[in-house]
């Protein structure tokens, strides 16, 4: 059985257009799944539906066998955490340690235990020297790391990143992506990441492409990007590696090894021959 099962889900903010229009797919435990698509394709809506922040209009979402609804939401939230896009709008406490403590307070962790948990997770995200800092004295990347620490402290096994790196500078992006990859490397944590970052998609186990609220593609990232024509049809970018692969195909050059190393070799040979 899959950890998260999305079955024929519909959602609409208003009468005219459906934000999510009959989407079905499964996510296995421990997988790192990226969701890509244009703005307004329904990516964030889907994340909010999974987290129970919006109710489905029809269809069903189950997380670990429990259907996401009013009755189960408290139980589901104990194992699910979301990191949102805007670093400022998810910083609830007035200092780093207060913000990490916020979720623990909701979870009714005794106050004597909080100090240790806060220390453990601030260290995990590399912010143990910043515990007393206020949000206005932190960079965007640091604020996102605080958000991640606050969520990890609640020990979820499903993490949703809703464009968590899109408002950050290159340095911040790199920091957060490294943290995500480290978390994904473990077996028990399932990651769902909504992103525009093709580099990140290539790191994931599975890629879901949404277009106008519909499931457009769902496959391994290499397979998704291999169908460059299909991606271009909905104006999505094709990774550089795939562009090279296409260029080879156009010149009718057969690749001996169809991986990155093979392509680099072939490319060098091609340069020296021409």
């Amino acid at each position, binding site marked *: 059985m899959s950890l998260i099962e999305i079955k024929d889900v519909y959602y609409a903010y208003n009468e005219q257009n459906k934000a999510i229009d009959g989407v079905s797919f499964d996510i296995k435990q421990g997988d790192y799944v990226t969701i890509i698509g244009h703005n307004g394709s329904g990516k964030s809506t889907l994340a909010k539906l999974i987290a129970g922040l919006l109710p489905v209009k029809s269809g069903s979402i189950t997380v670990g066998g429990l259907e996401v609804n009013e009755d189960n939401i408290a139980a589901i939230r*104990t194992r*699910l955490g*979301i990191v949102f896009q805007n670093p*400022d709008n998810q910083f609830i*406490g007035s200092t780093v340690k*207060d913000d990490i403590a916020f979720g623990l307070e909701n979870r*009714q962790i005794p*106050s004597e235990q909080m100090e240790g948990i806060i220390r453990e997770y601030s260290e995990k995200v590399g912010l143990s020297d910043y515990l007393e800092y206020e949000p206005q004295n932190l960079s965007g990347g640091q604020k996102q790391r605080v958000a991640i620490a606050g969520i990890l402290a609640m020990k979820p096994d499903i993490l949703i990143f809703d464009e968590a790196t899109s408002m950050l500078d290159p340095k911040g992006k790199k920091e957060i992506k490294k943290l995500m990859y480290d978390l994904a490397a473990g077996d028990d944590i399932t990651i769902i990441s909504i992103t525009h970052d093709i580099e990140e998609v290539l790191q994931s186990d599975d890629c879901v492409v949404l277009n106008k609220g519909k499931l457009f593609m769902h496959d391994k990232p290499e397979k998704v990007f291999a169908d460059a024509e299909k991606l271009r049809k909905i104006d999505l970018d094709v990774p550089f590696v795939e562009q090279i692969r296409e260029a080879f195909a156009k010149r009718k050059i057969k690749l001996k090894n169809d991986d990155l190393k093979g392509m680099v070799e072939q490319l060098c040979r091609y340069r020296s021959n021409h």
Partner: protein
Amino acid sequence: MNNLVFGKYIPIDSPMHRLDPRAKLIGLFLMIAAVFVPKSWWVFLVIAILLTIALASAKIGIRMIVQSFKPMLMMMLFLLIINSLTVKTGEPLFAIGTFTIYHDAIFNTLFVIVRLLLMISITTLLTATTNPLDLTLGIEWLLKPLEVIHFPSHEVAMMVSIALRFIPTIIEETIRIMNAQKSRGVDFENGKLSQKIAAILSLIVPLFSVAFERAYELADAMEARGYVPGAKRTRYHVLKFKFTDYLFIFICGLVLAFSIASRSFL
């Protein structure tokens, strides 16, 4: 906005800073009552001496106190002028032309002014030595008894602490929007009143729209992290009364008692 002294927290360490916020709040109420009750200048002198000791121990300079009086100066001057014109009791003191100024006009007003100055100093002592978040916790604790009549003291405290948390963010945003509007030719400094109002509107409308958007996102983030309004939560900051806190409240209570008693012997 940084030159606002009244209500500003000074993040240093001092005996006053280390007191429990609840003790300081109770002390504040007792002391303000003690300032209101007496009819004698001697009581003010006693309170002023004690206050000076407290301010010194909190490392609050005389300059900060004087600064905190500034916003009230105009009001005090106004009070003095009105009272001089209207109060006709007591000994006549001196005359300006044909107009006589009476003893009570001057001294009763001075009495009120000293009372006000003492109140401001006491409040400044509280806010300068208490981190806003701790202050919120203290207020929450004081409002707890009202939970009997279903007053949501915890939610109110949560709202206040979030509001405090977002003040710097909103100020930053205000500056950003002002710069954006300036670059589009909006003039915030010059022009007629109607033009200035239009300029301010171009600031306020986007500011509110962004603030609402923030509020929605923050609500989502809080909900996603398991916050349920009204639900039981544990607290990271646990306030604990120490011996010095009890001593502080006792001293403040003593001052109030002296002040009440003074009405019958001074």
